[in-house]
């Protein structure tokens, strides 16, 4: 009985037949995917395949058609700021930190909706990225790319996410910072946060993922566990140069 309960998988986010784009230009075509509670799911694909658009559609930054269901509730009727309230936090591509605010102020904005445990969240972020604690009064715009990425992820965590959407967190980072970021993603996930990861770094992201989707010109062309996809001939050829 107990075993049965722990094996029961809860679908957190369910996307069916999602179409989205910019103006007249469609980018996503009939995307369907699902994310279970506690997973790391990655969506990999080349530049311009629609990975970022997918995250923007989920977080409500752009309009989409189809269905996005979050714990049996439709997200389509909600504005972006209300979707954050539901526990879906999007860390955007290019980090988009507030350049003229200090590290602490940036983190406070991440906790904008925070009613309780705000200080506790701040402590957690500082424990995950000690460098942010050292730089707490530095202006966000004056930090290096890697530090800004830590800040962007930390800022996202301040919003108490149940699902964290990460858009290209390793883009433009040195191998050292890439390692820091991927290890942080694992730590975040093991603390109970579900992660949807969009990445060009196919090997690293599939390696830590429970499930992966390969997206090509706005369509999902392949899906499987992280391991399965890493061993897939097409994935090897297209992304890993093997």
């Amino acid at each position: 009985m107990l075993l049965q309960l722990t094996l029961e998988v809860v679908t957190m986010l369910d996307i069916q037949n999602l179409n989205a784009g910019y103006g007249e230009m469609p980018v996503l075509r009939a995307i369907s995917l699902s994310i279970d509670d506690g997973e790391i799911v990655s969506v990999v694909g080349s530049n311009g395949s629609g990975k970022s658009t997918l995250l923007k559609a989920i977080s409500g930054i752009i309009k989409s058609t189809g269905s996005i269901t979050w714990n049996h509730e439709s997200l389509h009727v909600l504005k972006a700021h209300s979707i954050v309230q539901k526990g879906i936090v999007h860390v955007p591509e290019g980090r988009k930190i507030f350049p003229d605010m200090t590290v602490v102020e940036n983190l406070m904005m991440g906790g904008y909706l925070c009613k309780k445990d705000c200080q506790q969240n701040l402590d957690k972020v500082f424990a995950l990225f000690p460098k942010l604690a050292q730089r707490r009064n530095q202006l966000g715009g004056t930090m290096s790319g890697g530090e800004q990425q830590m800040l962007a992820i930390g800022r996202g965590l301040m919003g108490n996410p149940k699902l964290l959407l990460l858009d290209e967190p390793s883009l433009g980072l040195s191998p050292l910072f890439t390692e820091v970021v991927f290890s942080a993603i694992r730590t975040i996930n093991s603390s109970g946060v579900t992660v949807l990861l969009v990445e060009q770094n196919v090997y690293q992201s599939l390696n830590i993922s429970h499930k992966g989707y390969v997206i090509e010109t706005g369509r999902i062309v392949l899906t499987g566990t992280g391991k399965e996809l890493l061993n897939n001939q097409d994935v090897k050829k297209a992304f890993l140069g093997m």
Partner: protein
Amino acid sequence: MSFLQPLLSGILTGGVYALAGIGMSLVFGVMNISNFAHGDLMMLGMYMAYFAFTLLHIDPYLSLVLIIPTAFFFGFMLEKLFINRVIHHPHQNQILLTIGLGLIMSNTALLAFTSDPKILTTTYSSSAFNLPGDISISLPLLLSFLITCVIISILYLFLAKTSTGMALRATSQNREAAQLMGINVAKMSAIAFGIGTALAATAGALIAPTYYIHPLAGHSFLLKAFTICVLGGLGSVVGAGVGGIIIGVVEAMSSTYLSTDWKDVIVFVLFLAVLLLRLEGLFGKKGGR
């Protein structure tokens, strides 16, 4: 005449200009809209102070207690009803809308109050006191400056310390990221426009005792506010504050050493110089927002 006289009066007048400039800059920063109705909103502030004085017998400086919330509400509603419809549209649509709103305001004022200039004369309108070195300071100008300082300090604390103030700054620094933090950016735009309107009306009320009040009075101030914003860097509140003082001093200096006819010329030469030499303004960021 002493060099200090125009410098001092320039700084005092510049304070009020700064107030108008900050209002415009805040709106530009948060909404990325140049508000060409800003001068007319100042004109409304002048009339509000005038009628508060003549009809309700409230001192123009005291009437700010009524004018500020009224103007905030008016601006908030203007944004909700009209401005938010063009916020994602090209700049020319926004310019046409705000110019149109300004025309409606000035022409309504023309119909309602006629084009006769009104003068708001308080008991202290022409009083001044003398400092050593043959410098005289006009009392209403000094009062306006002090009130301006108080209002700017309150605004600064609001933007720096309060949750809503920080959300306004976040929205102005990156609108999309602000949304992702759970900030209702549509509401922030309405608040920013409300504050901008309140600051414009306050600036109008503060100069009411020393200027002619007429329906087109806002137009010269619109250009000044715009110059101040460009000088300080569009969207920069600190820049607009400093820009206001600079314009005030430059005007006072050119009136004293050249002639009053030249002061606008000098101001616009300065404006062009900034555009040519330092497009991002004194406090703006390279590349703009």
